[in-house]
């Protein structure tokens, strides 16, 4: 079974394939649920396609594809939660998955790794990571990193290692415990 951080990676890949250059990933822990939300400034999904996008095998990208959203929807609904898609004026998309905490809820997984890999493997796009739980909130923004490092690339080894360590620290702070130990 896939964990929440892998669903986050998939949603972000959808955003990037829709030509987004700004992707916001938010992972919120509530008392009884986890909310994973990914929004982008990509090409959006038009009204009549919004209902079909999460059907298994529905894809605008070629055969054999179209399983990302449907898998996520099935997993969220299995917990009693849901997947909602929104797109305003066919500009930008927001996917919100709600997982109720119970035995069907997948583990959170390594969200730090997901965001760090996105940041360094897609240097031309920007990513925002918002983590929140009853313990507090944390915000990471690659634009802030890029402003600080100037002409140095975000793919540079030392920077890539710093991002990894920073995000691991933040994840621990907000969710308590090592990234892959956290379960619903």
């Amino acid at each position: 079974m896939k964990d929440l951080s892998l669903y986050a990676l998939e949603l972000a890949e959808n955003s990037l394939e829709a030509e987004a250059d700004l992707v916001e990933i938010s992972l919120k822990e509530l008392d009884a649920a986890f909310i994973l939300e990914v929004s982008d400034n990509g090409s959006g999904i038009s009204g009549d396609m919004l209902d079909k996008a999460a059907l298994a095998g529905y894809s605008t990208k070629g055969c054999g594809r179209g399983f990302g959203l449907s898998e996520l929807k099935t997993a969220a609904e299995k917990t009693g939660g849901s997947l909602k898609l929104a797109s305003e004026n066919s500009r930008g998309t927001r996917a919100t998955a709600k997982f109720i905490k119970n035995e069907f809820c997948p583990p959170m997984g390594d969200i730090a790794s997901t965001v760090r890999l996105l940041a360094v493997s897609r240097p031309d796009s920007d990513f925002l990571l918002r983590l929140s739980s009853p313990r507090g909130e944390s915000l990471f923004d690659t634009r802030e990193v890029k402003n600080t490092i100037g002409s140095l690339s975000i793919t540079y080894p030392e920077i890539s290692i710093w991002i990894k360590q920073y995000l691991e620290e933040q994840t621990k702070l907000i969710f308590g415990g090592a990234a892959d130990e956290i379960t619903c």
Partner: protein
Amino acid sequence: MKSLAELQTIRENTRLQLNLRHERPDNISVKVGLATCGINAGARQVLSKFVDELAERRIENVTVTAMGCVEKCDKEPIVEVLIPGEEKVTYVNMTPEKAVKVIQEHIVNKKVVAEYTDGASV
């Protein structure tokens, strides 16, 4: 606690080093398939290994990027390695362990790891 101020320090230290280097070596490109089929087959761990291993070895002339599905879903995780002036090499059914070998043999020693390539007789 780590802070953005540390990035400032990295930036300053690196500027000194970069100034000493006259030529930048040709950029090698590594692409990892990250569509749903790739992710389900373990592509994130493979991507993660490439990024970590290259960073640890301080190899700077390799760009690791994500790519979509290349319609060989049963062979995911798929990795393409492109060295300028050479033919593109496609590695299939990759694992983090295989990624380390590709870095050592292909990227560092410039010798294709034939047994991991698409079409290799297994």
